[in-house]
């Protein structure tokens, strides 16, 4: 009897756009049976909650958004609806964690032990709503949940030395090495695993200047829109093609 292809739900925020484009452009090469999108952008994403054993929008505007993204009339997601749930983007913002820690690791007068890093990663994830939601969803019976990181800000789109941006607070991160990044990824992966979750991290060859995404992965019109956050379909494809099903 042939194995059934796994069904996949890609749940996310505005970063779902790059996945959708990648799908339409045929850039995704993994073999899943049924693939559906589900989620909402920005404030609507915040109105998606876990409750009564599943995830659902709690406001009409969020419901409208979810239905539009999904296209199959799926208002609610239950743990047994799909074999694999990919939490894409989901406002995880790992750059907020990487920036101070790479800054510490790149400074030869500072030190962070692996144990401290691991402990901090745990707290950081506890503070993320999407992670808390995933933990509940997993407990409710979801077989597999994979977080896919939507990537560091794209290099060369905005002036990162401007006040409030990464390099204004953490200029030394441009000196961060692969080894330093790997220590942080390891801590985060372990923190996800301790919750029964997985993390699909940004591939190393997409990173530049310590903790930025290479310019080639910028969303179309990124400079005009001054949007360093969203990525091109090629980013989503490269990331998700690393997903083993």
């Amino acid at each position, binding site marked *: 009897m042939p194995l059934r292809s796994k069904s996949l739900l890609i749940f996310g925020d505005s970063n*779902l756009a790059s996945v959708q484009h990648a799908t339409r452009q045929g850039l995704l090469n993994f073999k899943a049976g049924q693939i559906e999108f589900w989620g909402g*952008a920005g404030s609507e994403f915040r109105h998606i909650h876990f409750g009564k054993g599943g995830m659902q929008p709690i406001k009409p505007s969020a419901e409208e958004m979810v239905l539009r993204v999904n296209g199959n009339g799926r208002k609610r997601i239950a743990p047994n609806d799909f074999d694999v749930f990919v939490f894409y983007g989901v406002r995880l913002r790992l750059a907020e964690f990487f920036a101070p820690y790479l800054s510490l690791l790149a400074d030869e007068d500072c030190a962070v032990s692996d*144990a*401290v890093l691991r402990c*901090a990663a745990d*707290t950081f994830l506890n503070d993320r709503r999407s992670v808390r939601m995933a933990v509940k969803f997993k407990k409710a019976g979801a077989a597999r949940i994979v977080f896919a990181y939507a990537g560091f800000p794209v290099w060369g789109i905005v002036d990162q030395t401007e006040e409030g941006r990464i390099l204004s607070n953490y200029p030394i991160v441009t000196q961060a090495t692969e080894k330093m990044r790997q220590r942080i990824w390891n801590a985060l992966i372990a923190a996800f695993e301790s919750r029964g979750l997985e993390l699909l991290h940004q591939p190393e060859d997409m990173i530049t200047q310590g903790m930025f995404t290479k310019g080639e992965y910028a969303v179309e019109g990124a400079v005009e829109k001054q949007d360093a956050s969203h990525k091109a379909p090629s980013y989503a494809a490269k990331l998700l093609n690393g997903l083993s099903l």
Partner: protein
Amino acid sequence: MSNPYENLAEKAFWRSAVADKGAHGLERLWSPRFEVKPEHRIVTSGSCFAQHFGKALSARGYCWFDAEPAPPWLRGEDASAFNYGVFSVRTGNIYTPRMLLQWLKQAFGDAKAGELWELDGRWYDPLRPVIEPEGFTSRDELLEARHATLVAMRKAVREGDVYVFTLGLTECWRNTESGLEYALCPGTTAGTQFDAKLHRFHNTPVSEAASDLEAAIALLRRENPSLKVLLTVSPVPLIASASGEHVLTATSYSKSVLRAIAGEAAARHDNVDYFPSYEIITHPVFRGMFYASNMRSVEPQGVQTVMSHFFAEQERVFGPPSSVPTKKKKAKGKKRKSSVRSSDVKCEEELLSAFEK
């Protein structure tokens, strides 16, 4: 005919200063030599009682100098477990004058790694064996952490205004070959086995403790001539004594030596003072009321009483403190939030365009 006692202040006489006042009415126990202002960067180190001092200063809005702050998202109990935010520098407890001197020599002179402990693949720092609850993953990780702490110690000493050091013990353990004094008796914590040939008990005599303290003060002042040193003695009794004496009499010896050398140092140097937290907790006039039932742990009320004397005497001598510096973090938080909101707008557009029909 007059005599030297005739014109002495009320505080010089037991009846008027103690018997008539009672434990709760005592005042002028301390005449501070220098002002400690809220804006002064106050460094705390030493025995465990110094932790209370730092926390109490922070709670009062004073500028406790955290020279080696916990990294982000390491908070509360987690930070404490890794010994961040306990003292100004992540040294762990420094019980003796020799230990303080060793740390200062490492920071300002010979920073050789020296003896390190390895057990079952984990690495431990003999100067602070419990700083990482499970030990370090490698020798390099340990040495990097030591280096960071020495950098922080240099910063604390050079940029601090007041250095509070709480003396804790005279009993210690030393390496017979190198002379290194350990923070704790080897073998009582993870990291190494006790070796009777290598690990020797030492109960520091007055002269040696005084000499070590003097050398430590000299080093502090060399690095920061304007640094003021405030000495205290921990009122917490020894948990155990290896001296062969009863732990109670051993405690008396230890604390007496420390109290004496602190007094001497304060008498010798203008910028060194002794604050009597030890007397406030231990003196018979207080009838042990500040100790928990084990007669060792100090109750929060004791700490509160110590600190109320500290602030009251500061105010009596120097007047009310100037306004407490305000924290500036709120403004940053607001800005961050507004930038999140503007990115929401962008996100909305991005997603809608991808899923438009």
